[in-house]
């Protein structure tokens, strides 16, 4: 774990050094006149913010996947109680907005004795919100697995649990992956809100940079492009890769 953390930190500082090297000749006076000057002055903050956004997204993805799997399967459970709990969770988190949930977790939970730091409150809120949307995706995918698969598992005398684990869920994963691609982009966009409870993510940094420089188009333009690049160059290709990997074993005409 320690090795991973130190690797992560060294990657982060390597990017900063690289950025500083590329902008080596640029001198920063008090006023910012050009884009290289802007980058030379605020590049470090942008890199920090980007990494914070990536951290928050990654942790939120973990929360979302766990919640979506649990409540998506719960939604098709035979037990009415479990179905009711899952439906309540899904409707609650899909029915209110992410900002409300974020503020509720951050400001109201302390009232009940559960104090969360901004950092965990941020990714937990985003993860819970997107987990509810994901649960509907999981439910849809489970129901889209052909009926014959259920019957075959039944004929082989599998218990419902074993049937779900070995037959239904692996096939459902392949069906749900394209929808998850969109959902993960929504999640990335959702993490932009954690800046409102003072997590120092990209959005938070952009506000800070703006208040220091008043260079709106440089600041927010750069931040928008960073978000776009994360979505298009990290999330979409990795989902495509996962899709082709997983569907290779499932040849269905």
């Amino acid at each position: 774990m320690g090795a991973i953390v130190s690797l992560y930190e060294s990657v982060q500082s390597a990017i900063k050094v690289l950025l500083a090297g590329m902008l080596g000749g640029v001198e920063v006076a008090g006023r910012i006149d050009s884009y290289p000057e802007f980058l030379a002055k605020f590049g470090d903050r942008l890199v920090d913010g980007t990494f914070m956004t990536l951290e928050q997204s990654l942790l939120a993805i973990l929360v979302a996947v766990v919640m979506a799997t649990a409540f998506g399967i719960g939604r098709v459970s035979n037990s009415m109680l479990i179905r009711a709990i899952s439906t309540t969770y899904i409707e609650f988190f899909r029915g209110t907005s992410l900002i409300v949930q974020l503020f509720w977790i951050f400001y109201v939970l302390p009232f009940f004795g559960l104090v969360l730091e901004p950092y965990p409150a941020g990714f937990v809120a985003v993860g819970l919100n997107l987990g509810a949307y994901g649960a509907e995706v999981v439910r849809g995918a489970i129901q889209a697995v052909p009926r014959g698969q259920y019957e075959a598992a039944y004929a082989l005398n599998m218990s419902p649990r074993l049937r779900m684990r070995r037959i239904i869920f692996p096939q459902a994963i392949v069906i749900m992956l394209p929808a998850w691609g969109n959902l993960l982009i929504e999640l990335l966009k959702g993490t932009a809100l954690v800046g409102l409870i003072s997590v120092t993510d990209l959005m938070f940094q952009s506000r800070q940079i703006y208040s220091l420089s008043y260079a709106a188009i440089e600041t927010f333009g750069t931040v928008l492009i960073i978000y776009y690049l994360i979505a298009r160059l990290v999330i979409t290709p990795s989902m495509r890769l996962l899709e082709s990997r997983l569907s290779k074993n499932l040849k269905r005409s």
Partner: protein
Amino acid sequence: MFNSISDYFSQVGERLDWNGELVQCVVFPKLFGTAYTDLGFAAACKDPALSNTLFGALGNTLIAVFLGYGIAMIVGLMFAVGQRTKSKIFNRIVREFVEFIRSTPLVVQIFFVFFVGPQFGITLSPWVAGMTAIGLHYAAYLSEVYRGALNAVPAGQAEACIALNLSARRSFFGIILPQALPFALPGMGNYLIGIFKDTPMLMVIGVAEMMHVATAIGSEYWRYTEVMTIVGLIFLALSLPTAALLRLLESFVRWKLGMTR
């Protein structure tokens, strides 16, 4: 109805806390404007001071929803049609623009629209900037819905229009668009609720919608519990029935047009 609800909350607020301790009622009158209950709801609506209450802010939220959605519906149609023109390059540019809007966060877009204007000497009010940003963002989403719906109309319909020598405008607005509507309705309904749930983001530039007022009330008394809970409940109370209503509307339109599932 309004009187009784507000009275109820003001009494509960006066008596006890959720911990069962006696507290002064400072939050609840602020939420529903109890001071106005003697005058009735209509009088309360006319008073500008009401916009400092949660109930007045709900009105602002709804105005933002309908303005934003109106912009999104029209601009979204432009985006959708812009991807069906004869020029491949133009289609590609519009497509990339829509993709860009769709995969970047709305909050940053709101900041961008609000703060970039002054740099070029154009100062936008929070409302104008907010409506522009949210309208454009949802226009990108709606254009995807429209695009799918337009593609779902059988190609024979467009060919028939050419055979009948209808003008491009008449065939689009008279033949293709009405038939695409039932395909577009489910997606449009989802994004109406989506825009409602995204209006709190307007608080970052100071539009006095519900969440902005809620945080103001919360920070004034340093008590967020009731305000945040009530805001959450208002969101639930509006979005869940709206979702159910939209599903009804959708099946009604399908039935009216003689489409069976």
